[in-house]
């Protein structure tokens, strides 16, 4: 019986990184969960990004190997409005993606997630995205890295943005572009704990986002064939293993039913008090592993009786 692969995004330890833990310690906390996949943010976790020293790269590989892990996704940004007076061209966007593809390859990653600048409150990516990605596809194929834009609240699955990405996959026929699902789109209760750097201005302007866009888990059926990687966004799991915002009890069975066997990469985005993320990530792994085991046990019985 195939199953989920478990990973951790070092984004989970935002604000801890550089105040109470360094990169190696963050990797050790991730490994201690039993996770085998490690996700990073290029601009955050790679010293001297985009050109780390050879010594840094060697140490990266040595640490990952020592911990028995492997690199999954490296987050990338295409800062379209790069100055107040200049917006990136398709060529410049492609250069950013190709730079990150090369760095990701050097570090052993299988995916990169470019986050494009947007043009409206629907988070419609700047129109250069299509041309920029198109120009980078050959390099992605050559390095065997898949480019994955993130489907992130408030953008749901059934939405022109997501449909635009699917259209691109279908038209190009590429195997090196897909979708990453951020499980924040399934959030179905208002946020009580949030670590995404909210300000009063944003809180006033973005209430529906904070209440959760509650995408039905069934909508995964539409796109799962394009989803090789999932960011397991969450905000608070209490000591009874109850997640206050994300419906894992519906999401896990749906992913199992769809035979998803990629990574679930923990992306904790809750209270940013020091060290809290370490325990929160552990609780999420415990919770999802329990739900997966329950599903597997139920199915083993079905099969036995069938």
């Amino acid at each position, binding site marked *: 019986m195939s199953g989920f692969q478990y990973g951790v995004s070092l984004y989970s330890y935002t604000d801890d990184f550089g105040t109470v833990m360094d990169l190696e310690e963050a990797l050790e*906390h991730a490994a201690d969960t039993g996770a085998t996949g490690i996700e990073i943010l290029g601009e955050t976790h790679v010293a001297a990004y985009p050109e780390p020293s050879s010594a840094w790269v060697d140490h990266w590989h040595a640490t990952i190997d020592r911990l028995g892990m492997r690199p999954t996704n490296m987050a990338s940004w295409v800062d379209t409005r790069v100055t107040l007076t200049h917006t990136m061209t398709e060529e410049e966007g492609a250069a950013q993606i190709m730079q990150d593809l090369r760095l990701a390859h050097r570090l052993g990653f299988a995916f990169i997630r470019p986050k494009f600048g947007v043009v409206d409150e629907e988070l419609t990516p700047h129109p250069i995205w299509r041309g920029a990605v198109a120009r980078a596809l050959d390099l992605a194929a050559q390095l065997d890295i898949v480019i994955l834009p993130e489907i992130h609240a408030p953008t749901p699955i059934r939405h022109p943005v997501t449909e635009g990405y699917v259209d691109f996959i279908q038209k190009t026929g590429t195997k090196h572009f897909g979708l990453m699902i951020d499980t924040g789109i399934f959030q179905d209760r208002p946020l009580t704990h949030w670590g995404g750097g909210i300000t009063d201005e944003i809180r006033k302007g973005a209430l529906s986002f904070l209440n959760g866009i509650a995408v039905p888990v069934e909508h995964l059926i539409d796109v799962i064939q394009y989803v090789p990687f999932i960011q397991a966004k969450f905000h608070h799991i209490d000591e009874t293993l109850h997640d206050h915002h994300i419906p894992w009890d519906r999401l896990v069975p749906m992913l199992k039913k769809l035979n998803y066997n990629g990574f679930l990469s923990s992306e904790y985005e809750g209270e940013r008090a020091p060290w809290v993320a*370490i325990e929160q990530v552990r609780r999420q*792994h*415990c919770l999802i592993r*329990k739900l997966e085991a329950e599903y597997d046990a139920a199915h083993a019985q079905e099969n036995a009786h069938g």
Partner: protein
Amino acid sequence: MAERTTIQSSGFANVSHEGTITGFRVRLRQPNYRGLRLSLIEGIDVTVGDTTYPAESNCLMLDGAAYTHAQMAEEIATRWPVGVCADVHVPAPGGLQPGVHDVAVTLRLRHPYFPPQFQPVFVRDQRHITIIR
């Protein structure tokens, strides 16, 4: 670096011997302000939920070496340094169930420079930590 609490989140896990779960371990930050000779640690009790696992059966894994309760009492040369974590190994056949546990530890420390009536000093911590599987 270590978590500020004495009890650490990472490191909490069941421990196996030849395929059988024989107990669990809890990771602790050294709770004193100076390096502790092991002989100054008079015991480390661990409580999980309602069950207390007394110091006499527990052992300390420090820098790759295991010290039983009796060995610690005579170990005057080895110190548990400040800022360093060590794992308390607790015998418990079958281990603990995966889930969040209410864990408490009590360290009994002897500070020779404290008056006799304050010997040993009890250092306590209690928090929720998680056995993942």
